[in-house]
């Protein structure tokens, strides 16, 4: 009796050997498919912003489960709480600002190495001003066909800021975190219009030294309420919180980050370095599921509409469906009724959006240097070195190749042979060009900002 199952086992064993041999003969990464997951039950954190959607889709469309992962998604109170919980292990990974893994690794703010193998999206932010500021700006706006000419430059805002100054009032703006994309985009836009956003110094961790506009931190979901209460006069935040201001009639979005820098890298999926080292196969499986989610999101407008429905649920973003839909389905509403087409406002997969480019990391590092978060000058090699510590294209490519082998994606979906640079970037509002191979030369182009070995 006992011999029969033994024989069965042997047959099965032989069969699996055969399968393995067959797979390697075909060049399939059999080990990737059979790779044992070190950890199956995972908890990921996110902030209530529309660009958390790849996580929601990977969960709802069962892409995580397909990889054998049992993921719980949990909204976090703010970016600091989220980062701390990833560092101390309460969360396995999270939807993060691109600056967070970089800042954490080099020690701007909390110091503890955090890495990323997956960029979540391009663009997706906007700058909103209060109704009072908008009325002032309107006096100076060039118009065409009854609507303001876009993109609106900060030169117009400068007149309002100067007026505030003459009246002895402080002009205050909110952004979501000192290491956030929003901070750098807001500063970029302001500085391009000749408004000084202030430097970070050893004594001033709020980044307001020498500032014309005082920038401070407010968690994204509280932006509209803070604007409404008059504590700030404008803010830079991700969606749906700009569209929320339009819907509530408390402010007007004046520019999107797509207009500040076309197709700028936005959120990343960050994990603690120790976690990545300990659970390499799990990491690849997570990236596989997220790639599929990104691909699904960019596959059709119908999918986008479905995604809007999903994330309007209270356990995800929770804002009204119309508000979320305004920015996620190819249009953007500026002033109430001024809805303009903006097909690339949210990009989740196209333009190789999800590949962790070193050059993306380097841009963020240059901005940290520009505003004094990195207090001393660094050689060009340092920038690449940090980027290589934090961005893990190898993990991404492992996931991509596995998906290609399983027939779930095409090789053309991924920049398989990339050297990690997107190439020289233009499409900035001030017309400057960004070459990630020469970060110090890039910094020299700015009228406002630190360069070389300068200190604030």
């Amino acid at each position, binding site marked *: 009796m006992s011999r029969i*199952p033994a024989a069965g*086992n042997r047959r*099965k064993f032989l069969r*699996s050997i055969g399968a393995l041999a067959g797979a390697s003969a075909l060049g399939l990464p059999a080990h990737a498919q059979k790779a044992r997951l070190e*950890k*199956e*039950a995972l908890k990921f954190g996110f902030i*209530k912003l529309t660009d958390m959607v790849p996580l929601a889709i990977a*969960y709802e469309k069962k892409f995580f*489960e397909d990889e*054998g992962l*049992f*993921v*719980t*998604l*949990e*909204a*976090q*109170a703010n970016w600091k*709480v989220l980062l701390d919980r990833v560092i*101390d*292990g*309460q969360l*396995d990974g999270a939807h993060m600002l691109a600056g967070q893994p970089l800042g954490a690794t080099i020690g701007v703010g909390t110091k503890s190495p955090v890495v990323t193998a997956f960029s979540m999206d391009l663009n997706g932010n906007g700058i909103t001003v209060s109704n009072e500021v908008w009325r002032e700006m309107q006096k100076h706006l060039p118009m065409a066909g009854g609507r303001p000419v876009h993109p609106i430059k900060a030169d117009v805002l400068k007149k309002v800021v100067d007026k505030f100054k003459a009246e002895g009032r402080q002009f205050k703006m909110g952004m979501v975190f000192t290491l956030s994309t929003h901070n750098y985009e807001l500063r970029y836009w302001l500085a391009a219009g000749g408004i000084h956003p202030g430097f970070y110094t050893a004594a001033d961790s709020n980044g307001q030294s020498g500032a014309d506009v005082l920038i401070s931190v407010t*968690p994204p*979901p*509280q932006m*509209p*309420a803070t604007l*409404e209460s008059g504590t700030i006069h404008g803010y830079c935040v991700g969606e749906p919180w700009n569209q*929320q201001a339009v819907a*509530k*009639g*408390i402010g007007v979005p004046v520019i999107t980050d797509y207009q500040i820098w076309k197709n700028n890298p936005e959120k990343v999926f960050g994990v603690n370095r120790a976690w990545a080292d300990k659970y390499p196969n799990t990491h690849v499986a997570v990236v596989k599921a997220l790639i599929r989610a990104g691909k699904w999101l960019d596959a059709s407008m119908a999918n986008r509409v479905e995604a809007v429905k999903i994330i*309007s649920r*209270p*356990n995800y*973003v*929770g*804002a*009204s469906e119309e*508000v979320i839909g305004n920015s996620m389905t190819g249009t953007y509403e500026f002033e109430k009724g001024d809805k303009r087409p903006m097909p690339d406002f949210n990009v989740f997969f196209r333009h190789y959006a999800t590949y962790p480019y070193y050059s993306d990391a380097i841009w963020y590092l240059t901005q940290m240097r520009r505003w004094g978060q990195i207090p001393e000058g660094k050689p060009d090699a340092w920038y690449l070195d940090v980027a290589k510590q934090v961005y893990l294209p190898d993990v991404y490519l492992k996931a991509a190749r596995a998906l290609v082998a399983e027939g779930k994606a095409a090789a053309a979906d991924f920049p398989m042979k990339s050297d990690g640079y997107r190439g020289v970037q233009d499409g900035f509002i001030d017309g400057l060009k960004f070459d990630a191979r020469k970060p110090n030369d890039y910094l020299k182009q700015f009228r406002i900002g630190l360069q070389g070995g300068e200190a604030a």
Partner: protein
Amino acid sequence: MRAAVLSLGVPMAAIALFLVIWAASAARVQTSLGTVPGPVQVFVQAKALLEDHLLERSKQAEFYQRQAERNAKLLAEDARAEVRIHRWTGKATFLDQIFTSLKTVFTGFLIASLVAVPLGILCGLSKVIQAALNPLIQVFRPVSPLAWLPIVTLIVSALYVTTGDALFQKSFLVSAITVTLCSLWPTLINTAVGVTSVDRDLLNVSRVLQLPWTTKVRRIVVPSALPYIFTGMRLSLGVGWMVLIAAEMLAQNPGLGKFVWDEFQNGSQESLSRIMVAVLAIGLIGFLLDRMMLGLQQLVTRQ
């Protein structure tokens, strides 16, 4: 007849009047999320939350089904494969969150009682201990939960190092300990007062009989101080429940406090109604907890 009107008729009329005033005045207040919801909208959302709970339960059943199939397949491929059953990964529903809150508040309350009652008895029995503890009690008693929370958070993070599937979530511990710190005091003070007011004659009798210390406490002190102890515990649970909501908001413990905070952050048109559902649920549960303690107290003191 008059008694029936007083105990049933008058409260009903008052509640009806309250609802009418609420419905009439709510529609006049414009917020950035639309008008303040009236009783009808709140009722609709309460129903929606319940339906959501049922829907989520059916999804949960499907999840376990899929998992069972997956594991069966894994075992079929390889009999030695290591299969694990994972817990449901979906969101916590409103009812789940109520349950989490109750669990948290009772944990905190239990720890508080375990600390406060013995300490209170010692305080009541010994003038020295009372003199020693009194200043500390007076200083810590009025501290708000919001002030304790950051300290508790940091200490828990430092001492309770976990990896992955821990027995308790940190957020749970932080909330429960904050509840303990704030709900300790009424029980402690009342127990001490109860013990000091034990009949002198009884204590003299125990001295005459040369009862051992433990017997004295067990047979004489505790039984006579019991009404006080229970009054203290009743107050403590009330305080604990109030504190818990604030603690959960900040510690992100997935209970009612987090529900209110998340809905506030969502800022959709239904958010205000949902928050009001939570407010009513919090009030109702607080009331039931108080009744429960009162019932217990009466049960114990009658003996």
